[in-house]
């Protein structure tokens, strides 16, 4: 029996051959950005990083429910935060981060008032501890609307 076949491999590499050389392009400053709502469905806030797998593009924007808006804002804050970790001198991006973070904060406060706590620290509502009352995100009824 062929020795290579019996071990489930074919071909040989020299002992010192590197498996692969990956390169990651440095993300430039002064680049375009999607608005939060578009970023959420594209999976990135940055058009220059938007490289859809096999050209499959998600173009179906989410409706404007409070939760969807919060999810878009939260994503924008996350994206800009990751970018700013390595591009801390980009004042324009920092300002945009500030604006999105402020909107997100205000949105979370409003959402908690209307729908129950999103953070445990908001859980004292209407004279009682309400953390366990609203559905958890993985429960069916939490995802009925929108």
């Amino acid at each position, binding site marked *: 029996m062929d020795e290579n076949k019996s071990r489930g491999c074919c071909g040989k590499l020299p002992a010192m051959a590197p498996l692969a050389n990956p390169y990651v392009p440095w993300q430039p400053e002064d680049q375009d950005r999607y608005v939060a709502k578009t970023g*959420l469905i594209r999976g990135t806030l940055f058009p220059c990083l938007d490289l859809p797998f096999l050209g499959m593009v998600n173009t179906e924007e*989410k409706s404007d429910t409070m*939760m*969807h808006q*919060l*999810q878009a804002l*939260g*994503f924008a804050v*996350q994206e800009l*935060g*990751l970018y700013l*970790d*390595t591009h*801390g001198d980009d004042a324009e991006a920092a300002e945009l981060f500030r604006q999105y973070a402020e909107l997100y904060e205000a949105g979370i406060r409003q959402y908690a008032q209307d729908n129950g*706590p*999103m*953070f*445990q620290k908001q859980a004292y509502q209407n004279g009682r501890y309400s*953390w366990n009352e*609203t559905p*958890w*995100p993985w429960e069916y009824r*939490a*995802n009925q609307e*929108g």
Partner: protein
Amino acid sequence: MFVYEKKLQYPVKIAATNPKLASVIISQYGGPDGELGASLRYLSQRYSMPYPELRGLLTDIGTEESVPCN
């Protein structure tokens, strides 16, 4: 220290249940090469990361990678 946000990161609407697909997805999260493992590796690697901006990045990516498990 982590604080839980009682919401999904991305909207999910399950039209039909599919246990086979669910099994694949859950192992992508919590399996041997899953996001949970990656998350913990990032969060451990940051302790020996000499570049400050990458300490921040490892913290944030490690935190984010654990999100689907929540």
